């Protein structure tokens, strides 16, 4: 038999084993095939799972690298997979102890844009969630100060949504330059 054809059996990452054992009902999908472990979590249990990931002594994902979102409204394949949830909120985690990364994705439906804030677990979530709110309109419940962070305060709409026109809706022309607090 040709040696190259032998597929080496990869051991299942510890994180997936532990999640399956402790939060199997929250786990919608998982993937570890391309070097990064990705898990898709049900929105109702996102707080519990994130807390578990941070506090479990074996996992210890103590560092929240990024929070962002993806608008899948034009990605039919993604939409079908997760019950036509338009947005996918993405958390990037890092564990200094295990020196490994984890991507946690949470499907969010357009008619219910609320999701629990992670500011109680990681302070770094504060500005990252503000940015996600600013760009996509995701409402992080329990966030201490959910304001726009990049766009001007009186801006309307959420420009990273796919249905937002690239040239805007005339805010370049109508922006009130005199009234701004400089």
């Amino acid at each position: 038999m040709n040696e190259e054809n032998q597929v080496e059996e990869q051991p299942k990452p510890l994180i997936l084993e532990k999640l399956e054992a402790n939060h199997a009902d929250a786990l919608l999908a998982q993937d570890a095939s391309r070097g990064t472990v990705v898990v898709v979590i049900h929105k109702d249990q996102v707080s519990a799972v994130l807390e578990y990931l941070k506090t479990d002594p074996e996992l210890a994902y103590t560092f929240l690298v990024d929070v962002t979102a993806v608008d899948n409204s034009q990605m039919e394949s993604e939409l079908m997979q997760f019950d036509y949830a338009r947005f996918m909120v993405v958390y990037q985690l890092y564990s200094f102890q295990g020196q490994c990364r984890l991507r946690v994705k949470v499907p969010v439906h357009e008619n219910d844009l609320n999701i629990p804030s992670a500011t109680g677990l990681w302070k770094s979530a504060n500005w990252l969630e503000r940015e996600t709110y600013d760009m996509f309109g995701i409402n992080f419940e329990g966030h201490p100060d959910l304001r726009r962070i990049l766009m001007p305060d009186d801006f309307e709409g959420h420009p990273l949504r796919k249905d937002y026109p690239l040239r805007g809706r005339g805010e370049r022309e109508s922006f009130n330059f005199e009234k701004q607090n400089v």
Partner: protein
Amino acid sequence: MGLDFVGQGAGETDGNIITTTIDKVVNWGRKNSLWPMPFGTACCAIEMMATLASKFDLSRFGSEAIRFSPRQSDLLIVSGRISIKMMPVLKRIYDQMPDPKWVISMGACASCGGVFDTYTLIQGVDQFIPVDVYIPGCPPRPEDLIDAVLQVQQKITSGASPKGVEVVYE
């Protein structure tokens, strides 16, 4: 500079007196001591820094005294993208500079928005502040910025008022 030496024959004043006009002397001084206010918001600012550093050395042309206070400067170099949220800041800085003041719009983004024809970007700062010299390029080479400074100097020598001056008193 319009200098005239007085006294051709033999005598004490021979060649020791020069005549000119006060404007020319003042402009000569202004031209050789431009104090730039850098407004670097993006990649063009990196080229501006290179221009100011020793390799290209803008100080050869008398403009090396970078001021980070608009009240002490007379040349505004806008280098980079300006968003609608940043424009009031730029306008405020321009307004704070004492007259006479000149403006260089460096690079495609500052001059016309460049490739960023998007909802948040000003399509040319000259919609809001008067620009004296535009530099094309993305980013322009440091030589281009030096050339723009020389053009500003030429403008000053020629006695032309800056674009920003609305009323010219004769």
